[in-house]
């Protein structure tokens, strides 16, 4: 089966700023792909190129087999989108908004079924201006489904939402995937990428630094665990050979194969008369992958 998205050497510049810097990406049908990256990484730019809202300076982008630059109408008819900051007409109700957007497509899906499936049935008569952030985001998601698209772009669908509202969006996205649709979403949240995505794409400064399943990424870029210690008489651990890092009174130790070294660590502490109050062992996360790839943290 042909890939639903194919980007080759995409370059997009805004007055000298390279938002996309020779980026290539392939996405296969039925996947949920999470694009993870800090502010200004180029996530929105990439999505908007694929949505036909912006044009590449160089390179190629094909969506569902169409060249987005030249056949953007065909693409728009077949994809669903939810923009990073989106607003709808304040004075229309949820159902009227769905009716209006449905009328823009040649084959809209049944509005009522859609509202039921996205948990908006009870809210259908409410004005858009009176919705909460989470409810608005659900409307945005419903509108992304109005033309029954095979491919959906969600730009930061959960940013700014509380954990409960975020969970609701997550279960909607899972459901969308179960219906066989491909979902491309961007996020700042590692746990969101880890929870939802089959494939994670890590982006920074207009480039893709790594991509793969969460397990692959952890194995390739963060094959280590972190020991966090606090106690008394442990300061010597910041010296070689241990090289712990001190932060806020706690000691951090990143080790690739902890099980081999835990014994010698503990016996060293014992022989030096040190005392451990807390010992935590943390598995690596996408945050560590990001740190390894960029030397920076994802969320500052």
């Amino acid at each position, binding site marked *: 089966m042909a890939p639903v998205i194919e980007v080759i050497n995409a370059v997009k510049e805004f007055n000298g700023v390279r938002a996309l810097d020779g980026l290539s990406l392939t996405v296969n049908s039925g996947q949920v792909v999470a694009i993870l990256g800090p502010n200004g990484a180029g996530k929105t730019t990439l999505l908007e190129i694929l949505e036909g809202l912006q044009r590449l300076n160089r390179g190629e982008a094909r969506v569902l087999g169409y060249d987005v630059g030249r056949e953007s109408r065909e693409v728009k008819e077949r994809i669903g989108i939810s*923009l990073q900051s989106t607003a709808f007409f304040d*004075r229309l109700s949820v159902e009227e908004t769905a009716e209006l957007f449905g009328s823009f497509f040649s084959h809209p899906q049944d509005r009522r079924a859609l509202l039921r499936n996205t948990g908006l049935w009870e809210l259908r008569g409410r004005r858009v201006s009176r919705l909460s952030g989470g409810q608005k985001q659900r409307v945005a998601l419903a509108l992304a489904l109005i033309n029954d698209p095979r491919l959906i772009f969600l730009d930061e669908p959960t940013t700014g939402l509380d954990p409960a509202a975020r969970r609701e969006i997550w279960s909607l996205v899972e459901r969308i995937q179960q219906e066989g649709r491909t979902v491309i979403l961007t996020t700042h949240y590692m746990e969101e990428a880890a929870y939802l995505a089959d494939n994670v794409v890590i982006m920074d400064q207009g480039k893709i630094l790594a991509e793969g399943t969460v397990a692959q990424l952890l194995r390739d870029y963060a094959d280590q665990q972190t020991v966090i210690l606090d106690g008394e008489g442990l300061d010597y651990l910041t010296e070689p050979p241990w090289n712990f890092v001190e932060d806020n009174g706690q000691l951090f130790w990143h080790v690739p194969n902890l099980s081999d070294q835990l014994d010698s660590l503990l016996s060293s502490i014992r022989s030096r008369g040190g005392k451990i109050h807390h010992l935590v062992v943390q598995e690596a996360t996408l945050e560590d992958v990001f740190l390894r790839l960029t030397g920076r943290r994802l969320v500052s």
Partner: protein
Amino acid sequence: MRAYLTLVRMNLKMLFRARDVLFWNFAFPVLFMVLIGTAFGTTPGFSAHVGVEGSGAFVSGLVQALHHIKGMKVSVLASGGIEALKAGHIDVLVHSANHHIDLYRTNASTSQSVSSIVLGTVMSMNLQVLHQPLLFHPIVHQISMQGTSYIDFLAPGILGMTLMNTGLFSGTMLITHRSQGILRRIRGTPLSTGIFIGARITTQMLIALVQAALILMLAREVYHFTPVGNLWSLIPLLIIGELAFMTIGFFIAGVANTMEVAAALTNIVSLPMMFLAGVFYPISQLPRFIKPLAQILPLRYLTSGLRAIVVHGTSLAHLGNDFMALAMVTVVCGFLAIKFFRWEMPHV
């Protein structure tokens, strides 16, 4: 087609849910018309006050004769007539004693006219006493005429001004939708820009028709204004006029980044037109040096066209100039609007 109709329907729904927009579109022109119409619109009828001093057959005959004149008030005074005249309480004083009659008038123009009426009345009283047949006897005919009262002038002017203001506003509304990101979201669908804008224009045309009906009905019911022309022929003029002002509004929306800037630009466009384009008084009354400026104001062509139809019953075929002028504005500003159209705010 479905998108177009749905958009128009939703636009109307949004309009009826927006109190401020409703106010500016419908209530404001009506209030404005009532205000100006009541202050200046109706020509005051004739009214005068004659004081009479004295008694006897002449005095009672004069009082009776003057009573029949509409708007004339007659008071019989015991004394103090001259003072009342000087103070302006009466316009003319007639003093009668022993067949000697004095008539006092002032240099006020009403006083002059009233004294002629009183003299005429006295003259016909003389003729009646002498039983002389009348040699010259004019028969009076009354012909009613349009365009004499101010309201005839004002009603089409206010209609033109209303179309201008709401047309400009509806064009610049695009800025709100753009800054909220609604335009961008719509651009992510297959909907064509033409249909989106076309639906906005259609909505505004429907509003313009209601505005015209409202203003003309008010003028007729309250101020006895009777439109004479074929009112259906107003429709093409309303459409081209509204188009002209909407395209100016769209152009402003393309140039301005915020609604505040757009409001300032709109004022720059609309204020001179309100006062120089024949809304409240004819262009012919403008100072000579300003007249050439008035000739290039689009509203001038709309008010003169509207006025020609409803006041003088001119047929559309004779309004070619007005149409051409408004069509030219539409084409030029439409071109500029397309050239400057932006889907989104520039990135900051």
